[in-house]
């Protein structure tokens, strides 16, 4: 259960990025979480809501993109989603494959909006 720590890291990143956009309010933060990242998206959402509630970040939405466990074949270049840990290339049968996805713990984007542009942020601008 380290979702709370991750939630704080996401929020800290939002605050840092928000400073580069004076006069604009952060509205949505996108994160990418790999299936193998050992992180529960629902627990992260819960923690994120808990730490933003009744703060200037209350209107900030969290969008989570889940990334599948993916491999790339080093022989034929085929990329495939791994099911039941079968890492063998389904196209050419090669065992020389490399993990290319599933470990993500990344920030993808931040959406910012002029203060007062939507009612969602009205509370924050008071």
């Amino acid at each position, binding site marked *: 259960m380290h979702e709370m720590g*991750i939630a704080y*890291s996401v929020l800290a990143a939002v605050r840092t990025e928000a400073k580069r956009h004076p006069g604009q309010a952060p509205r949505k933060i996108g994160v990418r979480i790999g299936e193998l*990242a*050992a*992180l529960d998206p629902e627990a992260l959402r819960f923690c994120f809501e808990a730490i933003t509630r009744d703060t200037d970040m209350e209107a900030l939405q969290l969008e989570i993109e889940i990334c599948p466990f993916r491999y790339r074949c080093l022989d034929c270049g085929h990329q495939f989603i791994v099911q039941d*840990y079968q890492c063998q290339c389904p196209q050419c049968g090669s065992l020389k494959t490399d993990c290319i996805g599933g470990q993500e713990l990344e*920030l993808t984007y*931040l*959406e910012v909006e002029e203060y007062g542009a939507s009612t969602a942020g009205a509370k924050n601008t008071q």
Partner: protein
Amino acid sequence: MERVPLERKILSENDRIAAELRARFQEHGILCLNLISSPGSGKTSLLERTLGNLPRHDRLAVLTGDIQTENDANRLKRFHFPVKQITTGGTCHLDARMIERHLADWKLEDLDLLLIENVGNLVCPASYDLGEAAKVVVLSVTEGEDKPLKYPSIFFKSDLLVLNKIDLLPYVPFDINAAAENARKVHPGMDIVKVSCLTGNGLHEWMMWLGQRRRAQKLLVQETVS
């Protein structure tokens, strides 16, 4: 609404510190290992056996993490190597900053080996890079042989699986071959050693693995220097 691309890791601050630590370890030719397991799998026992098997003048140090108490550090201090307890006060994993802080008053030039015992947990420690050269996961035979499938992340990221408490195999319904198979299903080619920290059985395999890694780390440094 304006969308600003970020494309960076959530734990970029941890990763930055871990990268600095890794560079410092490499500069000093230190092999750093991060030991991870469930609570009670035998990380501290494995360390006791390891320290007991190494010569007194060996250049190694241990950082041991727990939520509370200095118990593990006290167990390990009797081997006369530098040992420091990291008490997290509730946090279920170690992070790179804790390592950096606890290394502050140790001279890295006096070390060849740094063993880090993480907090007992198979989930969260997998996400935090500590600057180690390799993660080592410990699984004991009183647990389920399907643990690699239940907690794939840590088995995927670890170079070595230490199957511990093999002295108990006659008394528990643990299929050691199935456990090894499950680990290699998640992480093909993973190294596996089978040990008993109680009887000492199999420990030479672990010590050999450790010795090989230490020699490899030294060669790495020599190549960088030359």
